[in-house]
């Protein structure tokens, strides 16, 4: 027994009881087979038979690591702490006998005896207090949540009423439109032939062509304006967000060029003696540059913005008719009044009677003009009334569609939840000031980054979905724990901005943290009572320790 080498002192065995570290459901497998002289044991995967004394002897024998449940000698296995007085837990073998007392093992069984105190009593107490606090929070939160549910119910009634009212309105408006259409069609058929002829006028043709040209110009102009705005946005974001690590003087030049063009102050805090001051001079020059003088009658940019549309909406046909009137070229009366010439004598009395009543009726509605000097364009007004009616109809239809959509989303799990608990928060805007920026998310709508020291606001994306990660069940609490806002403004040299809003139960609707974990990809964390399920409705096993 005694070692021959004097220096050879065997290391004290670190073996422990064979069932040490075995979780309760496996205890029945840790029993020696006593058929042989020395008791043996089979690795759990059945791959090997070892002596019972080799179990928990701090040496890994089994390929599956099952022979060392209590020593950490086998990698990738688990150790069970009983944690009497609290809740038992499993920890990875990598944490057994590593010299650190695991918080999950309040009984200290993960380390050799004497290393870690048993703190299960206190830990258990704190845990139960936390559980209680959590339960209270849920309870209070769920009360608020139930008001959200009630709100959804009211919304349902309101929207249904709205739909009903819209439907009624639509029916009326449809009738109105049909009636006006009838009148306009009749009036138009009366003048159609003459109108066609008049339209051959070179003046009219030219006018129409000008109109098209103007429309095309307007379209191009708008495109350029948008493009310029987009370029401006890009340059603004370059200016405020460019990354000096690129040490790229070309970028710096671009920023400076843009600042000069846009009359912006220099963003860098570097004020190099000559450059800085000369730049300021230049930019103030740019600002004080006098506006270009316009020829009389020319439109200013503001006029172009606001008046061009109404000019382009001119009804040229009506104008043509008015024009005829104005220059007095047309001597013939409207066919309506001339028609008697073509009628046989026998029907004249009935016709005149009809004509009088028809004209007076038209006059009443301001559609046809009587012989009054202020008559104007009957055709135009008829049409206008008709268009207005059509427009009102389509608005009403849209409104009803919107209401119907609202109704369909109200209890849709991918929108406001099966109980409509999220409806109350639609459009609610939550803000978080992080110093440099204020971050805002308007729920179910859009997230934004607003600089606190001036500069442009960036969209961080629009609501696209709840947590649709694979394996997450639609409608589960986990599903409602995340909202995605995507396709925000594109980052310079980066992706489109986006937000993940991570929510948990809380008494307030609020954003608590904002982090840009990767360039232009934000994570907001926040709370909402909408996630506070009543305490008894959740599985207690879900609660974290």
């Amino acid at each position: 027994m005694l070692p021959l080498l004097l220096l050879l002192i065997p290391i004290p065995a670190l073996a422990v009881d064979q069932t040490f570290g075995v979780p309760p459901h496996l205890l029945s497998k840790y029993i020696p087979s006593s058929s042989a002289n020395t008791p043996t044991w089979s690795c759990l995967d059945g791959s090997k038979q070892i002596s019972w004394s080799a179990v928990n002897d701090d040496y890994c024998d089994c390929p599956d690591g099952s022979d060392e449940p209590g020593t950490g000698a086998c990698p990738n296995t688990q150790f069970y702490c009983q944690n009497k007085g609290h809740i038992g837990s499993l920890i990875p073998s990598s944490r057994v006998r590593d010299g650190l007392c695991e918080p999950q093992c309040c009984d200290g069984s993960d380390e050799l005896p004497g290393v870690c105190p048993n703190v299960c009593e206190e830990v258990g107490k704190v845990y139960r207090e936390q559980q209680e606090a959590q339960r209270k929070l849920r309870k209070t939160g769920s009360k608020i949540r139930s008001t959200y549910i009630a709100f959804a119910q009211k919304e349902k009634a309101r929207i249904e009423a709205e739909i009903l009212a819209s439907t009624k309105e639509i029916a009326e408006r449809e009738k109105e439109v049909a009636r006006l259409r009838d009148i306009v069609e009749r009036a138009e058929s009366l003048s159609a032939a003459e109108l066609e002829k008049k339209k051959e006028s070179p003046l009219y043709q030219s006018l129409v062509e000008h109109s098209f040209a103007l429309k095309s110009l307007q379209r191009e102009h708008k495109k350029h304006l948008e493009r310029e705005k987009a370029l401006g946005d890009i340059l603004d974001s370059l200016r405020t967000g460019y990354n000096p690590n690129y040490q790229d003087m070309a970028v710096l030049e671009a920023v400076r060029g843009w600042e000069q063009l846009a009359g912006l102050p220099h963003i860098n805090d570097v004020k190099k003696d000559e450059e800085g001051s000369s730049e300021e001079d230049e930019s103030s020059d740019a600002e004080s540059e006098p506006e270009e003088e316009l020829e009389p009658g020319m439109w200013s940019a503001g006029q172009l913005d606001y008046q061009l549309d109404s000019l382009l909406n001119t009804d040229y046909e009506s104008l043509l008719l008015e024009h005829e009137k104005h220059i007095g070229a047309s001597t013939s009366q409207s066919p309506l009044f001339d028609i008697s010439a073509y009628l046989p004598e026998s029907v004249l009395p009935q016709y005149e009677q009809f004509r009088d009543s028809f004209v007076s009726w038209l006059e009443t509605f301001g559609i046809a003009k009587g012989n009054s000097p202020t008559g104007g364009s009957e055709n135009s007004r008829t049409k206008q009334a008709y268009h207005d009616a059509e427009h009102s109809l389509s608005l009403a239809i849209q409104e009803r569609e919107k209401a119907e959509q609202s109704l369909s989303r109200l209890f849709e799990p991918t929108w406001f939840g099966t109980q409509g608990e999220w409806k109350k928060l639609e459009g609610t805007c939550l803000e978080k000031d992080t110093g440099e920026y204020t971050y805002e998310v308007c729920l179910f709508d859009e997230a934004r980054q607003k600089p606190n020291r001036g500069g442009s606001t960036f969209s961080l994306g629009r609501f696209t979905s709840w947590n649709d990660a694979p394996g997450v069940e639609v409608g589960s609490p986990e599903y409602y724990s995340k909202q995605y806002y995507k396709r925000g403004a594109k980052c310079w040299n980066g992706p489109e901005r986006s937000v993940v809003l991570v929510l948990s139960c809380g008494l307030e609707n609020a954003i608590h943290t904002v982090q840009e974990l990767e360039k232009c990809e934000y994570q907001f964390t926040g709370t909402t009572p909408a996630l506070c399920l009543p305490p008894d409705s959740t599985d207690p096993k879900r609660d974290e320790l």
Partner: protein
Amino acid sequence: MRAFSSFILLASIVPTVLSVKTQDFKTCSQAGFCRRGRALATRASESATSWKSPYSIDPNTVFIAPNQASFTASVKSSLYPAISFGLDVRVHDDGVVRVRMDEVNGLGKRYDEAASWALIAEPKISSSIQWKVGKKDVRAIYGKGVEVVIEFEPLKVTLLKNGQEEIVLNGRGLLHMEHFRKKEEPKLAVEAEVPEEGLNADDAQKVVKLENPRAWFEGESEDAYWEESFSSWTDTKPKGPQSLFIDVTFPNHGHVYGIPQHASTLDLRTTTGEDPYYSDPYRLYNADTFEYLADSTMSLYGSIPLMHAHSTDSTVGVFNAIGSETWVDISHPTPKSTETYWISESGILDIFLMPGPTPKDVFAQYSSLTGTQALPADWAIGYHQCRWNYISSEDIRTVQKKFDEADMPVDVFWLDIEYAEDHKYFIWDKKNFPDPVDMINDVQDTSRKMVIIIDPHLKRVSSYPVYQEAVERNVLVKQKDGTSEYEGWCWSGSSAWVDFFNPASWDWWKTLFKTHSLGDGKFSWVESTENVYIWNDMNEPAIFNGPEISMPRDNIHYGGWEHRDVHNINGMLFSNLTSQAVMERSTPYKRPFVLTRSFYAGSQRFGAMWTGDNLGTWEHMAVGIKMVLANSIAGFAFSGSDVGGFFGNPEPEMLVRWYHVGAFSPFFRAHAHIDTKRREPFLLDEPYKSIVKDILRLRYSMLPIWYTAFRESSVTGLPVVRPHYVVFPKDEGGFSIDDQFFVGGSGILVKPVTEKGVTEASVYIPEDEVYYDYFSQHAYRSAAKGKNITVPAALHQLPLLIRGGSILPTRERPRRSSTLMKQDPFTLRVALDKTGFNARGELYLDDGTTYSHQEGQFVWKEFKSEKQSKNVIKISSHDLGSEKPTEAVDGVALTTYDGGNAFAKSISSVRVEKLVVLGVASKPKGVKLGGKELEWEYTPGVGAQESKKEGIASVLVIKDPKVAITTDWEISIQL
């Protein structure tokens, strides 16, 4: 046509997106002195035999010091008879020859302090040298057939071994030390440039030629003597030309290595001569070379002017102690010889010739000059997780939690520049890091550390105490007028730079790192703890609006030296002082950890380096290995490149392979640029995630091997990762190999895969020995002349071999961090050599954090397997500490060693839990420890002694002998 044009478009866009802005950095032709240097060499080669160096020794001035210590003489240049130079040649007691030359009584003073920063101490002069003064030369023979000869006319210094020329200085007559002179009136120049009426340009040139008798050597014109411009910057040169050119020839060495840092091969390529591989010389000028090229002689962040010349018979070295910008041309006139030519902007000639004759000797000789790699704290060789940036204290906590959930080991979490408010280093951005000390303590709770960046640029605002104190102490770098504070642009905007050449900055800098209040109202980093270590970046220095992204050369440092004189040394002083600061903040001192980007000869004494801002490409992954090897042989053993590549988003396959590269680098850190996707290993999908977890655990299991290699490096100067020519200096087949290497003296040979889609790899085995696959135990055979073998290398596999005859100590229990492994038992892998009996290995352990090892607090064991008798293999452990106490620890020659020292006692319960013996010839009859039979298991396979046989080796597993790692023991295997 469309496809073609879009191809053109792509071809023209891609390089500009993903490569360095070469126009930001000079080529040789854009640097006046390099242009002059190369032109001189061209003139010399064109005049061939008629060329003769104008420099010669005046025999009347030869003087041998009374103690024979050194030889001095006056040197004259026939071009300028009025100017004199002083030559000083001395031989150190280890045989290194130091050759110095400076201008004497000139109009100015050349910079002569480079060596004083690089050298660890003033070298001891040999007292056994006998100088022999002849008519034409002075010579001294010493040591084993080493001879140094200084010829008078022309001046030539030759180091010979057994009569064979090893190193020759000025053998090609290119030596030129531009003396200080007064700026001449521009009259002559004007005449030369503007031909008079009636004269054509040729005539004018002829006139000049006649007027300049020195043109054959110096060239026609005064090229960029007094001023030069690059891009928008102008370098005023108030001191005029002061370049130094020297040719160094190795007539009998066909391979040269060293002069890092370049993204290139270990075996240096040609830059001149017939059909050179590169067109520009290797450049040494520390620079922030953004997105550098993966195959180039462009200068990078650090410079070590050390070169090895190697052949099958001999290895020699040259250390050119110069701090200014230096370009090195290399050519091989024949495959067995090498010519080099060193073109420097300023400074004295101060060259150390290392006679070798083996690589091991050259490492010893070089480390006797500049010191060895400092033994790092043990945790520092674990895995480092970095990113620009972990954005908040919560982010750090979350990342730590995710590592633990994934059960992946990691030792250090890093904070890049964004922790600092407005990039005022030391000052926390409290919005995102409201509780820095709590955060640091949370990391410490799992025995992990934090490394936080401190850069050298100080934001110029009076509210920043560090800047304010630097102003008060007047320790900032000055503009060319020598008095006004220099201001440049860096992360912090308008910034100033501490001049660490100024001794007044030293103690002050150290106080900044104290973690307690100084009580005098001065700044100290109270919001940190001794668990915080430091990263020094941007210390080239990088200056965004400066020439070549650095400092104007005419800036003035302490002592009136121009920045050009000290540029390459500048970065080293920063990490030097920071490392002292970190060491001295603890009582007793603790080993510092400081990572530096810029470095110089000697930087290895102060911490670790990495290869800077690499790209996430396969090319950069591959060249990173070569760069680490090049740094390693130049003394900087603690080196690595960013795993994953700093820029870009590596695909999972690339990332996995990069973890293999990192796990076998001395310094192992993953890092990523702020614009990249997060890529912490726990974010990977399967199977990548599990593969990386296994790689991390492999690194941790092998930490004892790495730490043992670091001890050896810290004492002997041998690198931690060793290229073939270092381990097998006589095997010509390995001289150009730089994609596989050995780990310390352990016998581990690794060849990381750096290509996409690979399933097998070819590994070069340099000797007739059995090599075992680390994982499959497959035995491979080679031949005496070396041979390539093919090994499996699918993504989850790594070509990792154990050289037959090695014993590897590992710790196989996965833990969360290295500190948590300290009480874990060891596994010994005994890989028998082709005799079937022999193997050896070492293990060194100490407390890993303090300097108590210098007082003998350590355990240093040797494991041996040998033939006890015909049928008995004896495996034993014995103490090296008591056998070789003088060689145990760097810097201290212990006279005794006590095996029962306090550290040894603290690990007395740590045991060997398992022995795995590879290649045992047959199933043993018994395995005994001190007469007691042990439990064991034998799996038959190829025996080590079966000389031609390949296949899975036999494996004998000896279960838990229960022997302490600190004690001596013997196990016998009865065959």
